């Protein structure tokens, strides 16, 4: 039950975050420092999520089939594959490596 409350609270805060942007006067965005923080924060969060999803298993660092998914997705992105193709490439790479016996 308590997880339900965290889910609903996170949903409410997610919506209020989005809405708050619409309530801010547009000129605030012109401040270069705020724009920069927003930009670096987004990059940092996405890089961190990529790392966590590749190497973390709880509090353990592991090298498993997901590293293959990361490399395959990187190659697909270098070849300018569209988003969905990159995601499929990542899944196929991980699935094939597991089929080959990798954890």
């Amino acid at each position, binding site marked *: 039950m308590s997880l339900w409350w965290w889910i609903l609270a*996170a949903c409410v805060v997610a919506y209020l975050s989005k809405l708050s942007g619409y309530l801010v006067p547009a000129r605030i965005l012109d401040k270069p420092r705020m724009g920069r923080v927003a930009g670096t924060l987004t990059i940092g969060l996405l890089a961190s999520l*990529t*790392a966590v999803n590749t190497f973390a298993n709880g509090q353990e660092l592991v090298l498993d089939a997901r590293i*293959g998914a990361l490399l395959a997705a990187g190659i697909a992105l270098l070849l300018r594959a569209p988003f969905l193709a990159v995601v499929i490439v*990542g899944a196929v790479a991980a699935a094939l490596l597991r089929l080959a016996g990798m954890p």
Partner: protein
Amino acid sequence: MKFSQSPAVKTGLSIAVATGLYGISFGALAVASGLGFWQTVALSALMFTGGSQFAFIGVVAGGGAGSAAFGAATLLGIRNIIYGMQMNSMARPTGWRKAAAAHVTIDESTATAVVQEDLREVRRGFWTAGLGIFILWNLFTVAGALLGDALGDPKAWGLDGAAVAAFLALLWPRLASRDPVAIAVVCAVATVLAVPFVPPGVPILIAALVAGVWGWIGHQGNQARA
């Protein structure tokens, strides 16, 4: 220009299909991480911002507390504030449309809208991508949550590899110059170093702090825009 010939609508539709289908992965992973069917459906319908949703179930899957999942999801949603500000000044929705626009303000709808040339195309791109993704994302979340059990272990199907690839693909277009690459590498390294020492979910917050400080004290002219 006719609606059906609008480049913004075409872009919006292709992004909607690409992103919406990925909902099947979210649905399956959410159920695999221990969430119930309705909890999974609620996240896609009510939270509706992919990165935060994956962060939430990622923390839960790693054994993290609900509070840590809430924190990770909320921090990832902070960028939507910036998107809301951008869309408010570009698409200029009014009244109830503002409340509706807020709910579908995500990476993809904003990205589709900001590259358009005029107000009408901005609006078409934003709403086509936003509503298109909302419908497909929720339909495929349900499919994934239902199929998740039938599929067995999602790892055997490489669904955790799909999540890795999706985050890299979201990050990729932002790595256009040297500074963003440096930020990404530093934050990824900070994350990996933090994993063994702090509870799941917290490494992401540490990386966010590093990135935020970097942006705050960064030199003028560092163009690392969202």
